[in-house]
């Protein structure tokens, strides 16, 4: 009797607690058509790097998103000042030495592609120059000196590790959102023991434009909500491209390199 009662409650408890069912369903799909997607990043020291693709239907995320004959232009004050070059039709660049950029000017981009409307971005300025004042190291630690960070922009400090002149990997040491915290001036110190294997380490201190910060924050929020199928609604990724999707953002960067055999530099 007790066994059968236990069995009964066991089965019914199971019915109640383990009844989440997933299955594929036929559902009317909606796609708002192919649109150009551009992600372009501009700095005075590194020029412009961009990627251009097209959107895909949501039910075909692994489809071909390449565009054949897209052209990317950098504009200043509404006038085209340079055109990006590409080798593979996906990555577009304008070298820094081809540009003469000013911190006061407003920059934007335009993308043309046959079969698509011309898309354009919001106009924006370059952020103020950022500088790692100096880098010194002893046998155990590496020290970066940063004296005058601007409080109104986001920062990140990235470490690139090299061995035999080849990059072995990168990691982000700091990401500071100006909405919550600012980068204080001072000394930043890292233990070198973990990087003994590498020949050199390059530190990049980035200063992001507000658009880039906004996009990165929205990207983080998107990732958080996307993982949860029961989230009330997903967070949308910000875009400042008109007629298409993506982002045009500016940044400035300052670099300093530590080399293994130059301790005390």
């Amino acid at each position, binding site marked *: 009797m007790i066994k059968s009662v236990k069995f009964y409650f066991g089965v019914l408890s199971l019915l*109640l607690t383990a009844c989440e069912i997933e299955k594929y369903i036929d559902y009317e799909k909606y796609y708002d058509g192919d649109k150009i997607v551009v992600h372009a990043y501009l700095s005075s020291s590194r020029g412009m790097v961009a990627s251009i693709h097209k959107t895909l239907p949501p039910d075909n*995320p692994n489809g071909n998103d390449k565009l054949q004959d897209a052209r990317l232009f950098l504009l200043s004050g509404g006038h085209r000042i340079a055109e990006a070059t590409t080798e593979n039709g996906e990555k577009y660049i304008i070298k820094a030495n081809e540009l003469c950029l000013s911190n006061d000017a407003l920059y934007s981009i335009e993308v043309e592609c046959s079969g698509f409307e011309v898309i354009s971005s919001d106009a924006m300025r370059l952020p103020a120059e950022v500088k790692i004042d100096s880098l010194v190291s002893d046998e155990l630690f590496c020290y970066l000196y940063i004296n005058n960070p601007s409080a109104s922009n986001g920062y990140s400090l990235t470490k690139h590790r090299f061995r035999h002149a080849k990059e072995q990997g990168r990691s982000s040491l700091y990401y500071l959102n100006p909405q919550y915290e600012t980068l204080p001036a001072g000394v930043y110190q890292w233990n070198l023991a973990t990087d003994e294997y590498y020949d050199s380490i390059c530190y990049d201190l980035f200063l992001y434009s507000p658009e880039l910060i906004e996009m990165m924050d929205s990207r983080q929020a998107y990732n958080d909500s996307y993982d949860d199928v029961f989230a009330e609604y997903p967070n949308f990724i910000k875009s400042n491209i008109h007629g298409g999707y993506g982002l045009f953002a500016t940044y400035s960067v300052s670099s300093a390199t530590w080399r293994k055999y130059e301790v005390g530099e």
Partner: protein
Amino acid sequence: MFVEISVYPQSNLITGHVCDVSNGESIPYVSCVDITSGRGTTTNLYGYFSLQADKSSRLQFSCIGYESKTIDSISLSDTVVVVTLNPTHTTLDEVVVSAYIPEREQVQMGKNTVPVEIIKNIPSLSGEADLIKSVSYLPGINLGKEGYANLYVRGGDRGQNLVLLDGIKIYNTSHVGGFLSLFNTDVVKHVDVYKGGFPAQYGGRASSIIDVITKDGNRERLGGKVSLGLISSSLFVESPIGNKLSFYLACRSSYYALFQIRSRKKINNGQDGEYTNYTFYDINCKLNWRITERSNLVLSMFNGHDMTSFANLYRKETGTSNEYKMYNKSRLSINNKGVSLSHLAGLGKIFMKNTMSFSKYSNLYKNVIDEIENKIERQEENKTKSSINDITFINRNEISIQRHEIKGGLELSCYMFVPGMTSWSLSSDASQARCDTLYGYTRTNYSTEMSVYANDEYEINNKAKASVGCRATIYKCKGATYRRIEPRFSFRYMLTDNLSVKANYTMMNQYNHVVVTLQDEFEKEIWLACTKNLRPQHSNQTSIGFFYGNDKLKLNVSVESFYKTMNNLIDYRSALNDGEVLTSIEESVIRDGQGRCRGLEFMFSKDIKNISLCASYTISNNERRFSEINDAKWYPFLYDKKHDFNLLATCKVNKKWSFSGNFALASGAPVTLPVSYVKRDGYFGGYYIYDGINNKRLPLYHRLDIAANYCRTTRKGHQSEWSLNIFNVYAHQNASTIYYDSRTGKIKQVALFSIVPSLSYTYKF
């Protein structure tokens, strides 16, 4: 039925108190009519009434479920008269009460009295009678996600409902993380649901009022019942104590924890393993002291508790004398407590009720990780706590003068909020540290709310009746004082004897906000006080409707349309779930939201012999707008159901068998689906693009539940009842959400429930 009457010959005012003969329970909403003059009134929620009558008039008392009683007023002396009436059908101590005054004749609209029989007989998910779920058959009310017992009334949010249990404000109404409501239906005597047209005595919430009155306790004899169900079991006992006292005690507890005893023992004995535990219980208790024939003192208590826990133990031998051991235990406790002391008195023309109540809601999450390695112990503890404490005094007065029924009173509440307190501690043999990590809104906040109100229900002539009221409130919180005046207006006009038209306008303010977050898959609520920047929620509602009723045909039909606007709404800032550091209450929510909802509600009820049918249909449009969401554009509310149809049928075949069925058909809830996909952005990988929040709908929702009850009388004259419930009879998998599977690109549906049968047994003595 007893009718206790005292007469004031000078003024011809008759006052009294009506109660049931079988158990002494007071009966609300009994019709009391002077047959000679046609004047009438009803007893209030506590069975009290007063009526102006001529000496030679005849008074008739009637209520559904009881035989009518007629008394010659002239025969009433200045002493209390007791008139005994028998219930028309006795189902052993069950109190069956319905508003006798037909809905078409009431000035109130947007109010429904839910019969306790329906609450008990409506089929349910687990076989447990559920008060909150049972009211969802009414038009304009939905429960949100399938299986949950959250209320969304006429476009409002779940935190906008004022739920009162014997005057105690209940801040969290569910067990089992939202799947079962907190109310033990064994103790429920009367439930009023207000969707609109709120009387002036209610305030402090923007969308609805659920006023639950529990039984008084049997005054005649000892009685009770024992129930065994799938999720829980319960015990209910009621009895008189002497001539003037009566009480009831009801307890309910789950027993899932019993299945986990072995796993717990294993861990307690130091063996590897893990267990998940869940338990809840609730206790209701009431003591009723009839001081005199015209005054009562009532003490009501309530305690509800939910606890879910998880623990695992991991051990590893790393050498002859070295051992690694990790014990991880987490627990979420949710507590609701309340107590109220009420004094009810009929003082001549005036009925007065004074209530002092205390209510507390709290949730506590605790996680402990205990590690021992090489005989060095390290213990880390995380705790998060949130609570609200409420002490309220309510004074209510009612008086009938000629054609006026005047109500007035005051309400004073003091609140203490602990919105969220997180502490972390670490101790080890080598060092000891303790840190209270305060994420901004951790400080205790205090606020006070004081309201005065007055309401006059005036019978203009035989056809027209109006109710005009006003509620004025001062809410004082840190850094701000809010003063609000809320007008309430209702009007009824009888077009024919069977048909009336009604209209109303009400304004409501809500000073305490709630946001809901998830902890280990369990919903927990965080109550927040208003601040200078977090302003009170505000709602305006206008409605108009036609009500038809034919007593001979036992037919009622109504059509109501409403339009509601809401301001200063809040929503939880989703990024908070990841432990983002906050610096103030304002940062934890998205505020200054707007809402608007318009709808048309149809209700049809008909009794055919022993079959009762009730059908409701709502067509509505419910939207929200927040400056930080959806580019500040209006979007459909998550629980917006454009079409919502419910059919409820109950059939009592004979004394032994009864059946009930419930069919629900509704539009799918809104869902957000992408309109295109970006495969790569150069740095972070692919992402979906959306053209708006809640831009699509889930597939059509439909479900049929049935219940069969078999009741028999034992040799001792007691009753035993078996109840079989089948939730979702044809096992239709209703979508809770849908999403694109990023691997295949196909749309996947998640359904929470398929067919769920359950069986319960009740023994009444």
